[in-house]
């Protein structure tokens, strides 16, 4: 597809074509089935994008969340009964007690190590090989976080918000918490796209310092549609 065709699609959808341009465009759509298919695909993508970022959708998700909470808070009336053979009752009871204590302890004391499986860094784009960035990427993926920090500090982070995210993660890993926090806040301010990600990592940053209150404060701000929403909700439950 010619790149200029997308601009035409956009102009048509926005209604900024002249009457003549519109006529020509519509007759093209009528005669060229591939063009029509591409246009329909573009139109759908544009609609999905608009919906994806819409504030109305966020409000809807918020309402769902609230209504869901009130409706799901009623305890279940059904109870499962486990029939125990009296012969093995004592053994079964001890086993259950031990097992449930184990789970209880695990659930009650979440640790940073439960959550530090970071996404793989893949900054180096096709055809643009910058050796320092590649080194940072490799260091990060090899979990050599101090090395990654050192290299990130030589890069101009203004150039690429993704680098800043991985720099921040590396700082958390090397326990440079103040610096990490600073980077995550800058990330949140300068990148709309990474807002939820930076909140997730703020949550982990405080979890690593065993500050459960602060951690929860950040995790609850994560949007429902975000990648980390489900994980954040599960962690919030463990932090209670």
């Amino acid at each position, binding site marked *: *597809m010619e*790149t200029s*065709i*997308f*601009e035409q*699609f*956009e102009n048509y959808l926005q209604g900024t074509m002249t009457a003549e341009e519109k006529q020509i465009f519509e007759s093209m759509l009528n005669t060229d089935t591939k063009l029509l298919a*591409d246009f*329909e*695909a*573009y139109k*759908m*993508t*544009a*609609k*999905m*994008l*608009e*919906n*994806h*970022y*819409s504030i*109305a*959708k966020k*409000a*809807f*998700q918020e*309402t*769902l*969340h609230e*209504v*869901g909470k009130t*409706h*799901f808070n009623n305890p*279940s009336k*059904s109870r499962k009964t486990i029939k125990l053979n009296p012969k093995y009752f004592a053994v079964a009871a001890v086993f259950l007690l031990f097992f449930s204590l184990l789970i209880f302890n695990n659930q009650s004391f979440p640790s940073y190590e439960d959550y530090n499986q970071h996404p793989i860094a893949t900054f180096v*784009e096709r055809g643009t090989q910058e050796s320092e960035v590649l080194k940072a990427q490799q260091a990060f993926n090899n979990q050599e976080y101090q090395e990654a920090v050192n290299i990130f500090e030589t890069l101009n982070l203004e150039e*690429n*918000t*993704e680098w800043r995210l991985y720099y921040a993660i590396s700082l958390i890993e090397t326990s440079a918490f103040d610096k990490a926090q600073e980077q995550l806040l800058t990330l949140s301010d300068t*990148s*709309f*796209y990474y807002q939820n990600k930076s909140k997730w990592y703020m949550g982990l940053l405080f979890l690593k310092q065993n500050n459960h209150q602060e951690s929860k404060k950040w995790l609850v701000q994560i949007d*429902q*549609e975000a990648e980390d929403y*489900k994980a954040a909700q599960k962690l919030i439950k463990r932090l209670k």
Partner: protein
Amino acid sequence: MHTDQYLILGLIQNDRAIIEKIYTLYVPKVIRFIESNNGSKDDAQDVVQEVLINLYNQAKTTSFTLTCPFDAYFFLLCKRKWLNTLGSSHYKKVTNLNENVSYDDTAYGQVEETEQFEYKQHIFNEALKSLGTKCKELLALSFVTKSLEEVAQKLNVTYAYVRKKKSLCTGELTKIIQSHRDYKTLTSI
């Protein structure tokens, strides 16, 4: 159009009373089903929310018309979503399940349409993730900021550049979606 269409309208208008009504009238059956099929209340909550968000997306982006009662349709969507979840840990394409259900053809047809849309939405979400960072940033800004002029100011570029880039990025995203292996087999709405 079925008279229950007002429920769909209520969803897209974020009408709290209607959303409450859906939870009161139609969700308990879903909870009972999931709890009797290796699931918990939390699982039921997840399933219900996913289904409702999907219906919202479908109604917002397509000309969605309900042609059957909401009751059977909603239950079938939730049931199938739960059974799919049990079957795999990742999202998978819906396959026709052999069930003895007394749903009429319209409910089933509507369910299939919704599940196909959900898969299209999934392809969109995946494609958006793989779009270049600069495009993602620009698209995010352009849909959130009041005007493209403001976007141009924020990025310190010209308005003409933003307009052009927005359409090119949308086009690129469209191409990624169209190149998905399952794109051709999905029927167009």
